[in-house]
């Protein structure tokens, strides 16, 4: 009786189209399903990484823990796409953006229900989990109340 080895390809759930299915950071997807956006932190040198990494290139310790992205970041810049690459046409228009949390930055999309006239560079925003129409998961930047 041979056992079927299960492939852990959870990362294929990330974004409208994921180009990666297997990574040592697959637990990122489980956290998204629980409503949390996580980075990683090296327990040896204390450095926080976003996007999360499995390996610390500063101290080579391989001693990482998950660390939640909380609070707010400043909107560094954004762009609204009126034309999309193949696979993303149904999402148009959408805004890609960068938030600066001080110790790290987060690249992602701006929440689609936020009108463009309310988006201002320098505004404080928070990173929240978002379920896409095709049942995929990502995270978006939303206004702070």
């Amino acid at each position, binding site marked *: 009786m041979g056992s079927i080895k299960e492939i852990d390809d959870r990362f294929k759930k990330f974004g409208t189209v994921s*180009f990666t299915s297997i990574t040592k950071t697959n637990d990122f997807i489980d956290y998204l399903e629980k409503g949390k956006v996580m980075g990683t932190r090296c327990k040896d040198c204390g450095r926080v990484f*976003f996007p999360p990494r499995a390996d610390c290139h500063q101290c080579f310790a391989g001693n990482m823990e998950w660390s939640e992205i909380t609070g707010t970041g400043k909107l560094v810049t954004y762009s609204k796409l*009126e034309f999309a*690459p193949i696979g993303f046409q149904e999402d148009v228009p959408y805004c890609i953006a960068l938030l600066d949390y001080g110790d790290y930055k987060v690249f992602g999309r701006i929440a689609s229900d936020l009108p463009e006239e309310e988006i201002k560079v320098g505004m404080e925003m928070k990173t929240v989990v978002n379920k896409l129409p095709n049942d995929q998961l*990502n995270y978006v930047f939303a206004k702070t109340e």
Partner: protein
Amino acid sequence: MSKIAIIGVGQSAFVRSYPGSIRELAFEGFKEAMQDARLTTKDIDASVICSAPEYDKQRSPAGVFAEYLGLNPQPTFYVESLCSSSSMGVRLAYSLVKSGLHDVVAVIGFQKMSEISSSESQERMGRGADIQWESPFGTMMPAYYAMFARAHMEKYGTTLEDLALIRVKAATYGQLNDKAVYRKPVTFDMFSDPENRMSGPVASPLRVGDCCANADGSSCIIIANEEKAKALCKKPVWIMGLGAATASVNLAGRDVFTGLAVAQQAGKQAYEMAGVAPKDIDVAEVHDCFTIAEMMAYEDLGFAKPGEGKELVKDKATYKEGSIPINVDGGLLSKGHPIGATGGSQIRTIVLQLRREAGDIQVKDPQIGLVHNIGGVGLYGNVTILSR
């Protein structure tokens, strides 16, 4: 220390849809450079083939090209750094010749972008960024550069009108370049006319007119050591300085959004190696894949202070008659941007300028020229300084 020279340059016409295969396309640039240098294939000790992957089906193009170009049994190398592949190829060729391993090396860059559709091409280009953490959001090159444009506008008050002036300049010279893919004029008023294609939205704040033209094309640069250069070539052009740098692929790992750190670093290295300063440059080619990219290059290379790049184009300082002529061959915006061929084409333009063979776009008496070639969104940066 022996010097290293460029003894031959060539490129194909940059066209919308090349009616031939990639090896035939590569042959066009190679043939022109070989005829320019008056060499036979026996004179070439090694080849370096440069392109970005996944536009065509050929795996390992270097071996295929070596045969088609008549360069068997000499060794060949394949170099890839997206849009700066052929500048990186020249850097490799320089080191191969400088080491004494080879005397004469041909660097051939090519890209046949027309084998796939425009939206497929955007997806390929988007995957030149971080496929694990960025591409799933639906990224593409114009949107990344648009993020830099918005940051530049917010910090320095740069306007869409300032950027439009760069496109108008590119088209002024694209019309004079019979190898350019876009040979039509572009006027400032087109950008304020909602009916005109140039003003159409792509990725805010950038518009159609701010983006370069995809093209098919090839280029070839032939590098030689000092002894061979003096024996084979009447007007060798010398490689004075080379700079190359890399940065975080994900924008989350960057600190600067109003310029490209790789260009600043590669520029500094090249100036130091050449022993020259920005004021010594007489003519330059910069990587204007988007209008904002040229504006940032002015500042990253020290031709203008940060935030003051717009003054250069407003004053027409970067026109042919100006104090620092830039992209007077039409640039990527009008000449076209066949990814792997671009760096070689930029170098060809500067070599022809330094040899006084640039025809209608000849700048007055240049002694030192500079080439700035970027791969990805500032993922790779190459700066090359040449002299007569």
